[in-house]
């Protein structure tokens, strides 16, 4: 199943790393692997990894991002999460 390009990521909603996904820390960030669609995705910064791991403790993606990076970087990380969402790595709570 693929997610159509029009389905949008809502950063004000609560998210978590999908249960079908494993994360492995690497020097550049992390590798994520979706066990069902077998997609391998690269998380290219340690900050993004921290945000993704922390998603489930916040009531929205916005809050999870603000806990790890300053506001000037906020939009960049919304885009990064949105692309992870399109790769089916994130699921709603």
């Amino acid at each position: 199943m693929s997610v159509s390009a029009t389905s949008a990521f809502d950063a004000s909603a609560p998210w978590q790393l999908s249960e079908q996904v494993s994360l492995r820390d690497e020097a550049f960030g992390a590798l994520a692997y979706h066990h069902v669609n077998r997609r391998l995705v690269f998380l290219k910064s340690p900050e993004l990894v921290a945000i993704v791991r922390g998603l489930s403790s916040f009531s929205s993606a916005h809050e999870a991002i603000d806990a790890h990076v300053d506001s000037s970087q906020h939009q960049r990380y919304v885009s990064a999460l949105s692309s992870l969402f399109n790769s089916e790595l994130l699921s709603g709570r």
Partner: protein
Amino acid sequence: MGADPTLRDRFEHGLAAPICLTWELTYACNLACSHCLSSSGRRDPLELSTSEAKALIDEIAAMQIFYINIGGGEPMIRRDFFELIEHAVNQKVGVKFSTNGTRIDAEAARRLAAIDYLDIQISIDGADAETSDRIRGVGSYDQARRAMDHLRDANFGEFKISVVMTRDSIEQLDEFEALASYYGAQLRLTRLRPSGRGVDVWESLHPTREQNRRLYQWLLERPQVLTGDSFFHLSALGDPLDGLNLCGAGRVVCLIDPVGEVYACPFVIHDEFRAGNVREAGFAHVWTQSPLFTSLREPGSPGACASCGSYDACRGGCMAAKFFTGLELSDPDPECVFGHGETALEARRVTLRPTPSPDHSKRVTLRLSAR
């Protein structure tokens, strides 16, 4: 995976664990394909026991290696085959295994279909029995097709059809595509390498330069066709093919053989590329500490390719293809798209090419007639 240059640089320095770990479960095989990478045939009496194999799977799970590629020999010949793959998938270590299909009857297909996180590659070497059997032996194509039928009937889902590109099979690309589509399968094409017994057939069977150009164009138009990053040497022709486009040996890829030896990649089963044995200090130790892997992760020198404007695209090609054709690792790939490899082959100093270290080919019995 797109070709992100900064990410590629990171990969050249190695990862905490491989992305693509191949584990040849056994050297035993009921076929004797002429291009076999691992010179398989006879079981090695020292092959890892069931408990050693399970301990290795536990270590793979602890290292968070997401999936393993199981091959052989014919992996389904091992009596503990199902026990081992179930041990892996139960720990969320996905399994993709390569098989000649001879052991997939209706019952095995149903059992395989019931396992999650499992992927199957059935190998053929032609789109018809005549072409395929020339490499794999008489009857092998029909047996592989029967296995595909059983998987379809058992609703296994999308399996893979895996084909090595030879001078003959490369002329049947559209037929392979049609066959994959008939089964709802994914097509996977890989490069013929002069490794294992392949060293004996490479010269007569490797694609011509013109065929490689056609293959490149065909693949560019079909990003859905899998290649295991096999053809990155062809990326020098223009736009990069899908994949990392680098030699992953010891960096993102490695091979564990049936007796626990760790080699830099599935195509270099030879002492020069042996990094250690999992029986000694475990796989993680070999992956992180082996001097061979450390040296492979250092920035490579472009060698003879330094003056070529395409070095960034192909990175000098495949280490195994150079080594087993008697070239230096600093030489161009023997199938360099600009023909530099052919020049290097003509100039090569060694006339005796290296042969694979462990040879498990079946012994040929010579019959001497008594008078």
